[in-house]
C-alpha cells in the first residue's frame, strides 16, 4: 500500500522539522512548502492526500490559500494556527478547511487529527455506495426510513435533533461551525439560534451518548462548533 502523502505548509523551520519528523516516524510521506506560493504550486503538482496549513505565512494569508486550493481540489485541509482568536479558525473552517489545530499542540493530537481525517476519506469513498444507511459504532441512521438506532434500539428524536444528527453524520470527522449548522438547520444565524443549538445538542447527546460528560460521538469545540467523531 502506498504511504499517504502529506503537504506541510509551515514557515517556521523548527515546527516544520517537528511535524515532518513526527509524520515520518508514523509512516507518512511529507512534502514541504515554506511559503504560500510554494504551497499552491506543490498542492497542484503533487496532489497530496492531506494538507497541513499554517495560517500565518509570510506572503499570502492562509484563508486566501484555502480559497485557492478549494477552487480545484477537495483535498482535506487541517489548519494550524498560532492565533488563539476563534474567528480565524471559524473563517478557515467556513472557507473550506476540515479541521484545525492551535499552537502549541501536542504530537499526539496532531496524529489523532490526521487519523480522523484519513478515516473520513475512506468513509467517503466507501459509503457512497450504500449511503442510505449510516453506521458509526453503535449508532445507526436509516436515512430512507428516518430512524436512528443505538445498539439496534430505536431512539425517539425531535425533528430538529434528527436534522442535526444527520448533518453531523454526513460531515463525520469534519468540524462544523455554529454558523454553518444554524444556517443549515434554521436558515439563519442569529445569536438566539446558536443558544437553541446548544440546547438541542445537549438533548441529542443525552439520547445518543452513554456518558454525556465524556462524549463519544459528538465533540464540542468551544467557540467554534461541533464535530461527529468516527468511532
Amino acid at each position, binding site marked *: 500500500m502506498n504511504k499517504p502523502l502529506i503537504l506541510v505548509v509551515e514557515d517556521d523551520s523548527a515546527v516544520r522539522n517537528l511535524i515532518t519528523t513526527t509524520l515520518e516516524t508514523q509512516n507518512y510521506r511529507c512534502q514541504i512548502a515554506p511559503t504560500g506560493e510554494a504551497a499552491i504550486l506543490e498542492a497542484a503538482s503533487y496532489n497530496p492526500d492531506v494538507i497541513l496549513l499554517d495560517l500565518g505565512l509570510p506572503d499570502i494569508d492562509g484563508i486566501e490559500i484555502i480559497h485557492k486550493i478549494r477552487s480545484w481540489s477537495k483535498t482535506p485541509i487541517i489548519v494550524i494556527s498560532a492565533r488563539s482568536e476563534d474567528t480565524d479558525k471559524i473563517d478557515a473552517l467556513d472557507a473550506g478547511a476540515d479541521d484545525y489545530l492551535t499552537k502549541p499542540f501536542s504530537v499526539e493530537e496532531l496524529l489523532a487529527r490526521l487519523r480522523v481525517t484519513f478515516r473520513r476519506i475512506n468513509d467517503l469513498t466507501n459509503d457512497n455506495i450504500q449511503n442510505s444507511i449510516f453506521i458509526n459504532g453503535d449508532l445507526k441512521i436509516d436515512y430512507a426510513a428516518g430512524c436512528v438506532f443505538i445498539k439496534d434500539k430505536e431512539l425517539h428524536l425531535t425533528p430538529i435533533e434528527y436534522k442535526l444528527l444527520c448533518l453531523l453524520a454526513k460531515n463525520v470527522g469534519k468540524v462544523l461551525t455554529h454558523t454553518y449548522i444554524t444556517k443549515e438547520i434554521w436558515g439563519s444565524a442569529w445569536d438566539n439560534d446558536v443558544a437553541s443549538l*446548544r*440546547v438541542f445538542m445537549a438533548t441529542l447527546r443525552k439520547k445518543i451518548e452513554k456518558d454525556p460528560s465524556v462524549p463519544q460521538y459528538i465533540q464540542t469545540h*468551544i467557540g467554534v462548533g461541533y464535530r461527529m467523531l468516527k468511532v
Partner: protein
Amino acid sequence: MEEIRSSPEELLKQIKREEQQKNRGHLKIFFGYAAGVGKTYAMLKAAHTAQRKGIDVVVGYVEPHMRPQTSQLLNGLEILSSQEIKHGDIILKEFDLDTAIDRKPKLILVDELAHTNANGCRHLKRYQDINELLDNGIDVYTTVNVQHIESLNDLVASITGITVKERIPDSVFDNADQVKLVDIEPKELIERLNEGKIYQKMQAQKALGNFFTEKNLVALREIALRRCADRVNKMSSQAGGKANSRFTDEHILVCLSSSPTNAKIIRTASRMASAFKGNFTALFVETPDFPEMSEENKNRLRKNIHLAQQLGATIETVYGEDIAFQISEFARLSGVSKIVLGRSSARRGMLFARPSLTEKITQYSTNLDIYIIPEKNTPPYKLKRNKSQKTKFIATDLLKSLICLVASTIIGFVFSEFNFSEANIITIYILGVLVTAVITSQRIYSLVSSVISVLLFNFLFTEPRFTFNAYDAGYPATFLIMFIAAFLTSSLAVRIKRQARQSAATAYRTKILFDTNQLISNEIDSAGIISVTCNQLTKLLNKDIIFYQIQNKELASPLLFPVHTGQDISEYISQNERAVATWVLNNNKHAGATTDTLGDSKCLYLSVRVGHEVYGVIGIAIDDSPLGSFENSIMLSILGECALALKNDKTSKEREEAALLAKNEQLRANLLRSISHDLRTPLTSISGNAGILLSSEENIDKYKRKQLYADIYDDSLWLINLVENLLSVTRIEDGTMKLKLTTELLDEVITEALQHTDRKRSEHNIIIESSESFILVKIDARLIMQVIINLVDNAIKYTPKGSDIIIGTRSEGNRAIVTVADNGRGISEDAKKHIFDMFYTAGTKIVDSRRSLGLGLALCKSIITAHDGTISVTDNKPHGAVFTFTLPTEEVTLHE
C-alpha cells in the same frame, strides 16, 4: 522711613504680566490732532525704516483716499488684499483680519484705529481687530486722531461743534506700547489744506469753513498735546510704584441711567477719576419699574453700561425703589467721596413737587461732594414705559375690578337699609378700591375704581339720590377726600405688592446662586457639574443653553439644555454658531449676540475659565431679549463657580490617573521581577536537559533518559500554561480586552475545560455534579475555561494524590453558580484574604516544587469581575477548600 516693598504674590503677578507682554505684539499709535497732519505718512515712513532693518512688514489696510505723496510710500511694501463686504448695493472694503493672522508678519500696518467695521466683519470696531492681532503676537502700527478718544469726545465736540461717532476706549490709547505724536503748526496745516494736499478742492472749502479754522486747530492741538502728556504721567506713576495707587482715598461714583445725556456724564466722571487717580464706580439702581422700561431705553442703558466699562468703571447694580437712598447707601458703604450727577436727574423730581434727587442725596449723606454736570440741548426725554405692556388690558383684571365695585355697592345698599352713616359706605368703597389694587396687576384699575367709586357714591347714596347732584355743601369735600383716600391706599398697596414681588425675585435669584453652589459641590464628575450649571442657568435666565466641552484644545460635540425639555434647538448648533464658539475658545473672550464680536449670531458665547485655562464654552440663546445686568452678574458668578469645579475635577482626575499609572508601573515591575525569577527555572531545566541529551545521550541509561525527556515535557507545558495566563492578564489589566460574549451551555464549557487541565489529573478523582436542567450562560467561553482550568489545576496542585475534586453547577435566579471543591488541607484564614491578589502564592516560603507566579487566581477574579460575577473561597467540610463563582445566565427561546 519705611520702604514699601512688594509682596511675593505681587512680584509673581508682575512677572507673569511681563511674560504675557512678551508674547503679545507691540502697538504703536501715530497720534495727531486733525486729519492731514501726516500720521499715515509718518507710519509708512516708519514701516520702511523697519523693513530696512529686516523686519517682515506688511500693509494690512490703508485708507484709499490718500495724498499722492503718501501713496508713493506704499511702493515696496507688501499689501494684503482687503475683504469686500456687500452692503446693499455698495461694496465696502474692509481690513481682512483672517488673512492677516494667517500671513503672520512681524509687523502690520492698519490705518484708522477708530474705524467702525461694516456689518459682517468679525468685530464691530477696528481696535478689536488690532487687539486680536496683538494677541497673536503681531506688532501693529496704527493711526488715530485726538477727537476719537472716548473721554475727550465731549470736549472736542464742545470746541468744534462736531460730534464724532467713531470712538476708541481710552484704555487702548493708554495701554499702547508707544504713542508717536505727529504734530505740525496749525497754520501750516491750513496751508496744506489750501494746496489741496489733504482733501480734494471741493471738500477743502467745506472742511475749512466748519472745522479747520485756526482757532479750532489750536485748541485741538492743545488737547492732543495734553493727552499725550497725561499718558506719560500715568505711565511714570505706574512705573514709580503700583502700591501708591492703592492709597488714594478718592472714589468717584457715577449713576447710570437710560438717559441719552448719561454718556456725557459718564465720560466726565471718568476724566475726573483719572485726574484724581481715584477709584471709579458706575452704579445702576434697578427700580421696580425696570421691567416695564421700553426696549429703546433698555438698549441705551446697556450702551451706557458698556461705555462705563470701557472707561474703566466697576459696574455695580443695586435694587430699590428710592433711588436717592440706594445711591447714598451705596456711597456710604463703599466709601465714595464724589458723586457725579447730570442736571436732568437733578431736575427730575420737580414735576411731582418732591425734593429732587440731588436734594435727597444731600439729605441722606452730608459729607459727599456732588458734581452736577450741565446739559446743553437736552432732547425731550421721558422714561417711556413699554407701550405694549401699558395697553394690555387683561380681561380677568377688568372683571375683578367690576366685581369689587359691585360688591361694595351691594354692601353699601345693605348699610343704607340699616341706616348706617355715610362714613361707613365711604369706608366700604375705599376697602373695595384697596382690594382691587391688591388683586389686579396694574395701577390703572385702582385709579379708575377710585373715580368710579366716588361717582357711584355720589349717584346712589347722596341726597338727592340717583343723580350726580349733591345738596349738602360739604359733599365736594367728602368726594375729594374719598377719592384721595381711595387713591392713596391703592397706591400704597400697589407699591407694597411690587416690592414684595421684587424681593421675591431677588430672593429667587439668590437662592439659585446658593443652590448652584451646593449642587455643584455635590457633583463628582465634569458631566454632572456641567449639567447642574446649565440647568440652573436655564432656570435662572429662562433661555436655552448650549455647552461645549473642551477636548484636546478643541470643542467637543455640544450638550443642549433647552428650557422646555424635548424642544428642538438644533438651530443653535449650526456651523456658524460653532465657529463663534471656537473663536471664544481660541481668544478667551466672550462673543456672539449682544457683543461687538460676531454680533449676528444667535447665541451669546462665554468661556468658562479659571485664569487663562478655558474649561468649556457656554452659549446662551439670546433671541432678542438681552440679559439684565443682575442676571448677567449672577450668571458670571455661576460660570466662575462652574469653572472652579471643573478645574478641581480635572486636577483630581489627573492625580488619579497619575496614581493609576504608578500602580500599573508597580504591577509591571512586580511582573517582570517574578518572570525573571520564575521563568528562568523551567527554561534552565529545558535547555539543560536537552543539552545533556544532545551531547551525551549514549552515556545515559534508558530510565534516566526517559526522566530527562519527561522533565523537558513538563516544564514546557508549565511554560505554555504560564504564557496563556500572562497573556490573559495583560489583556485584562490593559483594559483593551473586550469580552466576546456568546451563549454557552455551562456543562459543555466545563467538560471542554477539563480536557486542558493538568496531566496529573488522573491521580485525582474529578467528579462533575451538574444540575438537572441545562444552564445557559452568557460568557466569554475561552476566559471562563481559563478560570475553570486554573481552579482545577490549583486543586490538583495543592491537594495530595487521590483527593476528590468536585465541580458542581446550579442556577439561582439569573445567576449560574459554579463550585470547585476539594478535600485537601484547606486554606488558612490569613491566606484567604490575599488569595486573589496578584503575585500571591500560598507556598511563598517553599520555593522549590510549587513554583507559581500567583497569577492564576488573580486572573480568575479579573475575568469573573469582568463578567459581573463574584468569586469567593470558603472552607469545605470536614476539610478542604471550596471556590465558588457566579456567572450571568441567559434565557433562551427555543426555535423548533
